[in-house]
C-alpha cells in the first residue's frame, strides 16, 4: 500500500508498504531518515521516539497505515536549517552522548518535556518523563544535566 505522511514539514509518500509494517520501518528504510533508532521493537527502550501530531510516541508501535495523513517530526526535524536545537546542543556540551544509540529518542522525549514544562523541571519530573528511554552507557546523570541545561537556557535566556 501507499502511505502519505508529512515528515518534518515535508509531504512524503512511501510505496509498497507492507500492511503490518511500523512507522519506524517506513521512516528508516523507505524515507531515508535513520535518526529514530530500531532497537527493541516492543516499546520498551524509547530509541525510536518521534512526534506524531505533536505527541511523542514509539514509532515501532505505530502501524505505518496509522500515520496516513498525519504529521511526524523526527530528530532530524529538530535541527532547523542545519542548526542544532537547544536540547541537542546541551546533550553535546554536557557529555550526555556516549555510544549515541539512545540519543535521538532521548532528544525527542526531552524536547517534548521542555516544550510542555514552564520553567526548569524538577529532577523527579525529568526522571518520570525519560522513564521509557533506556541508556546503557551514561548512567543517566549527564542526561539529567543536559535536560536541566536546555531547560535553563530556554526559560532563562
Amino acid at each position: 500500500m501507499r502511505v502519505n505522511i508529512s515528515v518534518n514539514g515535508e509531504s512524503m509518500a512511501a510505496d509498497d508498504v507492507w500492511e503490518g509494517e511500523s512507522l519506524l520501518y517506513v521512516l528508516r528504510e523507505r524515507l531515508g531518515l535513520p535518526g529514530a533508532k530500531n532497537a527493541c521493537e516492543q516499546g520498551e527502550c524509547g530509541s525510536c521516539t518521534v512526534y506524531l501530531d505533536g505527541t511523542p510516541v514509539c514509532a515501532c508501535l505505530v502501524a505505518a497505515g496509522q500515520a496516513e495523513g498525519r504529521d511526524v517530526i523526527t530528530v532530524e526535524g529538530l535541527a532547523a536549517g542545519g542548526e542544532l536545537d537547544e536540547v541537542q546542543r546541551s546533550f553535546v556540551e554536557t557529555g550526555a552522548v556516549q555510544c549515541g544509540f539512545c540519543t535521538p529518542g532521548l532528544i525527542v522525549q526531552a524536547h517534548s518535556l521542555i516544550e510542555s514544562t514552564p520553567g526548569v523541571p524538577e529532577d523527579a519530573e525529568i526522571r518520570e518523563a525519560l522513564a521509557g528511554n533506556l541508556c546503557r552507557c551514561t548512567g543517566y546523570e549527564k542526561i539529567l544535566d543536559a535536560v536541566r541545561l536546555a531547560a535553563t537556557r530556554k526559560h532563562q535566556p
Partner: protein
Amino acid sequence: MDFLRPLTWEQALAYKAERPEATPIQGGTDVMVEINLDKGRPAALIDLNPVAELTRWSTAGPEIRVGSGVTYTRLIAELGPLLPGLAQASRTVGSPQIRNRGTVAGNLGAASPAGDAHPPLLASGAIVEAESVRGTRMIPITEFYTGVKRHALEPDELIRAVRIPAATGPQYFSKIGTRNAMVIAVCSFAVALHPGERRVGTGIGSAAPTPRRAAEAEEFVAAELDWEGRSPLDPDVARRFGELVAGAAAPIDDVRGRADYRLHSLAVMARRTLGWAWNDYTGRGPA
C-alpha cells in the same frame, strides 16, 4: 494482510462484520509488539484511530463513559478526580510514550491477566460497551474475562466504550514490579470503597488466569468496617482481608515471580490499600 481504515464507527462495525478475523488496533502497544516480534500475524488490521468519536469521554448519570480511543495520558490528566483508582493504575502503565498511545479498551481487547486497568475496573464494577452491526451489548466486567488473553466479545464485536461508575469513595491501586516504569505487573490489586452502599470492591491482577474479584474478602470487610462511627481500621480485620484476597487468587510460578511470592504480596497490598482508603474515608489522612 489487509489494512482497513474506517472513518466512522458505522464503517468500523461493517468492516468487523465482513472480516470477523480482523484485529482492531488503537494505540498498537500490544498489537504491534505481536507483529514486530512475529508472534502472530493478523489477517487484517482495523485502524480505529481515525474514528474521532472514540477519543471522547462523557458523564452519563453516575457513570463515566470512556470512549475506546481515550489514551492513558488523557485519562490521567482529565479523569483523575472522577476515576481515581483507574487513573492511579494508568500512571503505572509503561512509559509516557506508551501512555500517549495505549487505551483502557486496548487493555481489555488484549485481556492479559497482567493488564493494569483490569483491577480498578473490577473494583469499580465497570461495564464494557460492545457493539456489532447486530446491536449493542453491555457486558459486566466480571463476565468479560473468560481465560488467559480471552474475553467475551463475539468475533464481529468491537469495544465502543467502557462505562465506569464515578468514584463515591476512596480508591487505591497497588502494583508489584522490578522498577517504577516499563513494568508488567508481577501482581496488582485495586480497592474501592462504596460508602453509599456500605460495599467494598476489589480487583486482583496477574495472579490468576484472568483478572478477578475477591468476593469473600469484599463481603467480610464490608460487614466489619465501622461505616457510621468511622472508627479506625482494626489491624486484625485488615490482616484477615489480606488473607482472603490472597485466598481468592490462583497464581502460577513464571518468569516474573513465584506463586507464593504473589500470594504474599497480594495480602500485603490488600491490607495496605484498604488502610489508605479507610484513612481517607475516616478523615485520618495518609497512613
